[in-house]
């Protein structure tokens, strides 16, 4: 009986943490808001456990890998910059949807160098239990030089397998 109580308590706690969103674009905006608010749990709760991230030429093949490898930096960047939504298209049907957004990103790096670029974002979402969660991010930039530097750094920084 105690064990049943514990399982129920865990399920209640787990479901309380889960968020998702009723509309696909709301899930995307909520994710960015969570990063800006330094709310790791809220950001994670908007991710499907099957998440795959393509980010400036790199791949995070699991939600867990993204959460550990890159979510902290994305949070740092979100706090240090302003993301202004410039364009958005939403499509798909049923439980599979996509949201395409472009953002003007402005801010300052740690050394004072300005950040000023357009970030391109593709998000694929899946609805489960009435809520949309993110199954794929693809971020890139219209700044060809930045994209090239990112991919060059990633190639040089790859650990041997």
């Amino acid at each position, binding site marked *: 009986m*105690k*064990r049943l109580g*514990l399982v129920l*308590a*865990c399920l209640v*706690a*787990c479901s309380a*943490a*889960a968020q998702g969103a009723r509309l696909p674009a709301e899930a995307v905006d909520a994710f960015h808001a969570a990063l800006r608010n*330094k*709310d*790791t*749990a809220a950001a*994670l*709760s908007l*991710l499907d*456990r099957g998440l795959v991230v393509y*980010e*400036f*030429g*790199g*791949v*995070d*093949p*699991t*939600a*867990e*890998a993204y*959460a*550990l*490898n*890159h979510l*902290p*930096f994305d*949070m*740092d*960047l*979100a*706090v*240090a*910059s302003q993301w202004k939504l410039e364009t958005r298209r939403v499509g798909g049907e049923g439980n599979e949807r996509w949201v395409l957004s472009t953002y003007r990103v402005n*801010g300052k*790096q*740690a*050394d004072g160098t300005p*950040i000023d670029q357009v970030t391109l974002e593709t998000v694929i979402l899946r609805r489960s239990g009435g809520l949309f969660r993110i199954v794929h991010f693809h971020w890139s930039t219209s700044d060809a030089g*930045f994209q090239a*530097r*990112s*991919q060059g*750094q*990633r*190639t*040089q*920084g*790859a*650990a041997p*397998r």
Partner: protein
Amino acid sequence: MRFATRLAAAVLGSGIAFAQAGHDDVVRVDPALKRLAGMITALGEPDAEGRIYSFRGTPIGPPASTPKEYPPGELRGWRLTFLAGQRFSAAFEVQANTAAEITVSAADGPLNGIAVRDVFIVEEIELKR
């Protein structure tokens, strides 16, 4: 690279362990929070009701910036969030810590469901309830 870090990368299916490359290296911004990632190495003893509020863990991450153990007592009040495992995205408040053991506040419920090799992050910020 430390064994625990390599193991965590393998567990998470990450081909590039704790990448410091990509846009992370091209854009350098100040950290929004002090943070330390870690991996569970053993579960704490359950109380009489079977509830677990502690575990043993080891820091993981880039060797140059990752301590070998947690600074005793310094994580009190920090937010702990699970990045893998059954409790993925669940957050707790650290009540106390030693070099290798972390205890969370009972206010957020027990840790039951966590497992050895689960990965977590502790961040210097108050847990919002």
